[in-house]
């Protein structure tokens, strides 16, 4: 004897096992299935026939999941694009702020040059990290490892700056201009370390989406 509710529950289990997430989109798909079964039955089909036809119409879980993942991929690509724009804007503003500080303060030519060199180093390093370095980064499949890399990247940047401010600066006798230039150089790793960890995670996420792993 065909049990419709039992068959729908089994279909749900199969979808979940194949990676279709609940409640969204699985609940919506189930409602769709029930609507279609109802329509098939109204046109004279038995419960079992209606169920078979409707399940066939929705299709197997694999291609269905691929469609939803493709959509997730587009969303991620958009997020990535915006993250890139925001990061570029931050770097641009940083450059303007540094230029302003370097010209307003009474610095020698060499000090000013060194200050600009720190910004140039940051920009060039960021470009290399973005365009060239990712091909050498590892692909981290484990989400916990990805999170750890993100946290380490952020903490190490701040940790370095704290060490610079608390351990290095008090031990060296800088003029105000030298202090300014040294601080600019110290900021370089603060920006670069989180950026590199973000790019490592980003490469891993992209690789996972391409290969279809969740």
């Amino acid at each position, binding site marked *: 004897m065909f049990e419709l509710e039992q068959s729908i529950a089994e279909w749900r289990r199969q979808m979940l096992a194949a990676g279709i997430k609940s409640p*969204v*989109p699985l*609940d*919506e*798909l189930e*409602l*769709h299935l*029930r*609507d*279609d079964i*109802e329509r098939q039955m109204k046109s004279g089909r038995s419960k079992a026939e209606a169920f078979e036809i409707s399940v066939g*119409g*929705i*299709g197997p879980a694999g*291609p*269905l999941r691929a*469609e*939803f993942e*493709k*959509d997730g991929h*587009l*969303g991620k690509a958009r997020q990535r694009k915006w993250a890139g724009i925001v990061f570029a804007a931050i770097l641009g503003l940083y450059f303007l702020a540094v230029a302003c500080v370097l010209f307003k303060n009474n610095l020698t030519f060499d000090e000013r040059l060194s200050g600009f060199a720190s910004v140039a180093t940051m920009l060039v390093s960021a470009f290399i990290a973005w365009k060239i370095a990712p091909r050498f980064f590892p692909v981290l499949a484990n989400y916990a490892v990805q999170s750890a890399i993100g946290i380490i990247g952020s903490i190490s940047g701040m940790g370095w700056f704290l060490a610079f401010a608390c351990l290095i600066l008090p031990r060296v006798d800088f003029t105000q201009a030298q202090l300014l230039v040294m601080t600019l150089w110290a900021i370089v790793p603060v920006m670069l370390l989180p950026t590199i960890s973000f790019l490592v995670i980003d490469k891993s996420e992209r690789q996972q989406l391409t290969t279809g792993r969740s």
Partner: protein
Amino acid sequence: MLTKELVAASTEPLILTILSNGESYGYALIQEVKRLSGDKIEWTDGMLYPVLHRMEREGWIASRWGEADTGRKRKYYSLKKDGKKALERQREQWLTVSGVFKQLWKEQYV
């Protein structure tokens, strides 16, 4: 039957147009398009729901869980302000393409 590419390109404007007449749900959208196209456009759930979810993220449409007359839970979609603007833009583009075809084919077959 229409090509996969044409079906994909027309999905968003069709959804936006149907929702401009009032809220609806996934299954009804599929049936409506099938009926209007004389069974020539058959959307699959695997194609429709990701598109609906993306359009919701874009802020074009909104969704709410409601109850059908049968008492069954249902997810209704409705058009938002940004969706109306998107529909206007897409409508213009499709009318342009349609206008060009009309002129070309009139010249060709008259």
